[in-house]
């Protein structure tokens, strides 16, 4: 299905920064994977490398055996890769329904946009004709972003922290929706998340810290470890360690 071979990513921000180091990952068909790990560990960067937003500085990516390393974002999208942004962009003048129609335009199935919005916890009649712009709250925009990915018939769907801004009430429904598209389209799902309930959906959990995969295994094995908080902090820190700290107030 999706295979990542020795992918590294460096960025030039005044000095060369290594974001990802020799990532090897094999995502099997019809499975749900959750990537977790500390902030700044490289999770979102990996998602962007998969979608083609960042070209890797080394390594290769294969989708269904085809080398897609040099393919553009559009080409990857048409091959069945989808990506829900952590911070989705907004569009002045573009209505919610127009955005979702664009998303669904390559899906051969006829979709009910109202039901789709319902699945992400939005009341369709209140949102279809609204602009997908700054008038929407962060949580609303986030749900619409998820809907644009759910609207597609995908081989692999990547969701970057889908729980951010989603209240607990809608959370359960969202989790069910992930399962539903997973079963309906046999989509392999990769979710970046810190939420225990999302981790619970996973067949496998992948732990990324300091730009590397530090662990990948079955949910049950890894969950225990994560809950003990080992490996989840990029550097060990204790309260009171800094002696000459600045004082506020």
């Amino acid at each position, binding site marked *: 299905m999706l295979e990542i071979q020795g992918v590294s990513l460096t960025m030039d921000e005044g000095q060369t920064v290594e974001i990802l180091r020799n990532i090897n990952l094999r995502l099997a068909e019809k499975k749900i994977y959750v990537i977790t790990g500390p902030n700044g560990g490289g999770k979102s960067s990996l998602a962007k490398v998969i979608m083609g937003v960042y070209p890797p500085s080394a390594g290769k990516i294969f989708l269904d055996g085809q080398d897609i390393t040099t393919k553009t*974002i559009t080409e990857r999208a048409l091959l069945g890769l989808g990506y829900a942004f952590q911070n989705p*962009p907004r569009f002045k003048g573009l209505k919610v329904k127009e955005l979702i129609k664009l998303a669904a335009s390559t899906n051969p199935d006829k979709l009910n946009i109202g039901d789709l919005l319902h699945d992400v916890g939005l009341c369709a009649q209140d949102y279809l004709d609204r602009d997908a712009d700054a008038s929407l709250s962060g949580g609303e925009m986030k749900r619409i972003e998820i809907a644009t990915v759910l609207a597609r018939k995908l081989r692999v769907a990547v969701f970057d922290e889908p729980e951010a801004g989603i209240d607990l009430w809608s959370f359960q429904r969202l989790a069910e929706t992930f399962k539903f598209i997973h079963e309906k389209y046999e989509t392999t799902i990769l979710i970046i998340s810190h939420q225990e309930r999302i981790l619970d959906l996973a067949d496998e959990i992948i732990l990324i810290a300091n730009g590397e995969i530090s662990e990948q295994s079955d949910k049950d094995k890894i969950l225990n470890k994560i809950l003990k908080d080992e490996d989840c902090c990029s550097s060990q820190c204790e309260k009171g360690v800094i002696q000459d700290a600045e004082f506020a107030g």
Partner: protein
Amino acid sequence: MLSSLDKQMLERVADLHEIPQGAYNIRKNGVGVQRNTTANIDIMTKKDKPGIDVIVKPYTKGESVHIPVIVTEENITDLVYNTFEIGAYSDVLVVAGCGIHNCGDQKSQHDGIHTFFVRKGAKLKYVEKHYGEGDGRGARVLNPKTIIEAEEGAVVELEMVQIKGIDNTLRDTEVRLGDKAKLVVTERLLTYLGQEAQSKITVELNGVDSSAQIISRSVAQDESRQDFYFDLIGRNRSRGHIQCDAIIMHAARVLSTPRVSAYHSEAQLIHEAAIGRIESEQLVKLMSLGLSEKEAEETILKGFLA
């Protein structure tokens, strides 16, 4: 008789496929060619200068006036003065627009000076569309001037659209609002190649509880140049808000000069202006849905100017 080219131009500037319903006056290459009046709306040719007087009777509801101008010849400079009397408590739509089809090498120019008297409690929606086409090198020039006097409780909605086609335009809009009068201006502008567009909007909030909202969105492409001047003047307890947004591309230039002037302690005036390129995140998002970069760009611009 209107030719198929005339009809095409009419469709562009007035959304008209055939001869309009209601009152209309079609002006072509400097002369009036067709006119219709209704029981409530009269149109008369001015005696002292070129142009028409449009009189809407008080309490006229749901009627429209179309006054398209088409210029299909080169080397024409058409100057016209139109005056509109929108009677008290009426509710009408006025659609003006100018289409220039210039296949020649000489300049075609149309300057329209429109003055509106919107009487007490009346509602006016004024739509002005400008469109130019033709393969010739002759310049297409449009200089519309719009003056609106809105009396107590009048509601004026102004929609000004100019997408490509016009090489040089100087748009001047002056609005004076009386007590409780309300104004909403929507301006959409797209320039490309070496086009130049200047838009000047001055709104005077003279009456108590008058309000104005101006939403201007523009896209400047290639080597084109846009200049915006906004002046919102609060002379009474009033509220005014200008939102000016421009997308700049290629080697274009956009200058936006805002001014808010308060002459009353209860005048609340806000000006927001932003100029920027298309955000790369927006392009990435649409490309990740399967659109090409060009399609993504077109979708973003189309939405922005909708």
